[in-house]
């Protein structure tokens, strides 16, 4: 076996693969072989590094050099200069936006400085298709410890004391959930992993499955031991082919190593896991809907109780947790609940992974301790707002969450603070918006999503959200009335109060939070027919500035609906009744006399 002096880690997450990271691996290997360095440096495709904005990423070890936006064409240079001569390729290094200096070691980059990676501990570090690398990182040691040195009660006690709460959105204490399933007597129980991540703009679960699939398998087995289940099911989106493939490889390897199957590690505990595929329904993130979907039915939620812990898959007690929750568990077992509970805030322990996106410089996947402020996340990790624009809002919790404003920037992020601020943790999408985003339009965007994803079972969600969307549509078209604003609020509250499942109960949050935080914008839309962000097309007014207009008639000749009139050599005018806001006049005007208001 060759003894490698250097490792080249190439990000193999979906984002980076979309930017040819496969070809990068190939080119690196070719360049190494050409220089006879194939036994000195090893190329490893890992999971996501998180810094998607600058992908594809190549990290060279042991000197921790972090190359960004690498193309296959750069590979030869990396090998020739860095691997062969030990000289860093400066042009591929990250440039600190503050002082324009190259930063070589990722630890010194603002993006990574404040992060603590627990759930993502192995993402971007190990080869997810190689169980040996996982074992080398203490993989399956927690399972071993649990099976041979602990009782289920001890494990549950650890988990409860750790303070870990479900990372899928609701934040239910994980240990308690496991205990509920354990308590129910049944001949068969199931462990389910919810990997039907559907929040638009959230991709942490996928990254974990792509980068560290074994951590989830291991945690599910630990759950099986605690609750008395022998069967696990992973419900995963069919739209995640890479994650599915890596899971299949991981399952196969775990079985070969005897870490899944009969009598694991010589104990009398047997456990195995199957994959189930989602088919594109956001509501299946709700646990009862998910279970129905796994049973081959429409993914409609049912009223709880009974909870899945009592009657779940096939009517048997079932524990459902999401990917990120599971990924935390082996570490908690190995490092102890005290360690975990020392991270985070009083009621929210540990870390949370966020998918940082939108109008922000450093788009990517981050993991920060609970209690980190939004400001730290947006400005220090996220590198601030793109193109020097003004921060307006940050949306957390996806379609179930709300929009927070500048006044919330110093709020420490945890479950309870976010709810108090009118949003929620959700699965961890965090979308940053700037002055160019219209908050009414954003609320409409989320409602459009909910309307499309509503299962249709209960009337408040099926019809209520449709009506909410229609009212918002009306407002963005400049046809809204004050009565509409009243209806918007009443309807939102009733939907929240009466909908059947979590999806419906939280679907008005984007409306309520924007009503609360951006009331003036709604008022402007309704009373002044004005969209300050200039997003709502129907409210734009094209106006000719009489002083600047020379009366060349170019605009009038090019207007497709003859909305412009005026005598030659005299200032022209646009008839707002006829104007269709196509913008053709602005393009044709050589004197910059036409403005959009």
């Amino acid at each position: 076996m060759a003894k490698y002096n250097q490792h080249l880690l190439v990000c193999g997450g979906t984002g980076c693969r979309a930017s040819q990271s496969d070809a990068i691996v190939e080119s690196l290997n070719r360049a190494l072989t050409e220089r006879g360095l194939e036994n000195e440096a090893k190329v490893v495709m890992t999971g996501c590094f998180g810094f998607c904005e600058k992908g594809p990423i190549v990290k060279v070890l042991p000197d921790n050099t972090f190359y960004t936006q690498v193309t296959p064409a750069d590979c030869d240079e990396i090998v020739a200069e860095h691997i062969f001569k030990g000289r860093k390729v400066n042009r591929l290094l990250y440039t600190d936006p503050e002082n324009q200096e190259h930063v070589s070691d990722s630890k010194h980059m603002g993006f990574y400085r404040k992060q603590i990676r627990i759930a993502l501990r192995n993402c971007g570090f190990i080869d997810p298709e190689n169980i040996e690398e996982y074992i080398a990182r203490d993989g399956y040691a927690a399972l071993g410890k649990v099976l041979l040195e602990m009782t289920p009660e001890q494990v549950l006690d650890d988990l409860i004391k750790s303070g870990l709460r479900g990372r899928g959105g609701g934040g239910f204490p994980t240990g308690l959930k496991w205990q509920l399933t354990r308590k129910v007597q049944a001949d068969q129980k199931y462990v389910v992993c919810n990997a039907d991540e559907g929040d638009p703009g959230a991709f942490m679960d996928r990254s974990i499955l792509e980068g560290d699939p074994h951590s989830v398998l291991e945690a599910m087995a630990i759950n099986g031991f605690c609750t008395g289940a022998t069967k696990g099911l992973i419900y995963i989106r069919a739209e995640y082919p890479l994650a599915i493939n890596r899971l299949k490889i991981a399952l196969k390897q775990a079985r070969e190593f005897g870490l899944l199957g009969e009598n694991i590690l010589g104990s009398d505990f047997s456990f195995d896991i199957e994959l189930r595929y989602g088919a594109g329904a956001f509501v299946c993130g709700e646990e009862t809907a998910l279970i129905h979907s796994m049973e081959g039915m429409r993914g409609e939620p049912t009223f709880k109780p009974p909870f899945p812990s009592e009657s779940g898959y096939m009517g048997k007690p079932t524990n459902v947790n999401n990917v990120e929750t599971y990924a935390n568990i082996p570490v908690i077992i190995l490092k102890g609940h005290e360690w975990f509970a020392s991270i985070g805030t009083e009621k929210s322990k540990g870390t949370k992974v966020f998918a940082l996106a939108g109008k922000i410089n450093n788009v990517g996947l981050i993991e920060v301790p609970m209690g980190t402020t939004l400001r730290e996340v947006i400005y220090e990790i996220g590198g601030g707002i793109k193109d020097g624009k003004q921060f307006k809002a940050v949306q957390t919790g996806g379609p179930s969450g709300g929009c927070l404003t500048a006044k919330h920037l110093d709020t420490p992020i945890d479950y309870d603070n976010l709810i108090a601020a009118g949003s929620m943790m959700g699965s961890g999408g965090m979308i940053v918006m700037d002055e160019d985003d219209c908050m009414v339009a954003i609320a409409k965007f989320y409602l459009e999503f909910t309307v499309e994803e509503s299962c249709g079972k209960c009337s408040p969600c099926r019809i209520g959200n449709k009506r909410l969307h229609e009212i918002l549509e009306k407002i963005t078209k400049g046809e809204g009335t004050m009565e509409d604003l009243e209806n918007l609020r009443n309807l939102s509250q009733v939907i929240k109060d009466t909908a059947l499942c979590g999806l419906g109960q939280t679907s008005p949050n984007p409306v309520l939070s924007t009503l609360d935080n951006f009331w003036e914008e709604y008022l402007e839309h309704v009373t002044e027919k004005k969209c300050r962000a200039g997003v709502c097309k129907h409210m734009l007014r094209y106006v000719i500035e009489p002083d600047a207009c020379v009366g060349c008639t170019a605009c009038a000749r090019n207007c497709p609906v003859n909305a412009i009139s005026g005598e030659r050599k005299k200032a022209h005018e646009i008839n707002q009744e006829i104007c269709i806001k196509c913008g053709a006049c602005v393009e044709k005007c050589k004197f910059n006399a036409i403005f959009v208001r």
Partner: protein
Amino acid sequence: MTKIKSLADLRKIKEDLQEKIRLRENADQPEKLVQIKVGMATSGIASGAKEVMNFLIEELEKRNVEAVVTQTGDMGYCYAEPTIEVIVPGKEPVVFGNVTTKKADEIIEKYIKNGELVDGIIPRNYETIDN
């Protein structure tokens, strides 16, 4: 692959496998370990830097010294190639010139293990040689 049949087996296998990624583990926390940077510019390679580097990596491991050996570009001490910079945790970086495998052996035994000074230290003209 044969199945892992006990916790002891798992732990043993882990020990073996850890070797494979020790380089990465160590790279993650170099400040706690001995860090050695080998000047590997063209002149360095010509003067046997590669040989020294491989020697260091192998010997440090054999002698159970947890260390990170990296290569770096021209250190600017062409007159004394090959050069290496050694950082022992808690101490200032020290640069040695004209390092041969023999010299390297001495550096490990005396400077790294016992903290004794060794001939051949050259005054540093950089705060750090990270480029």
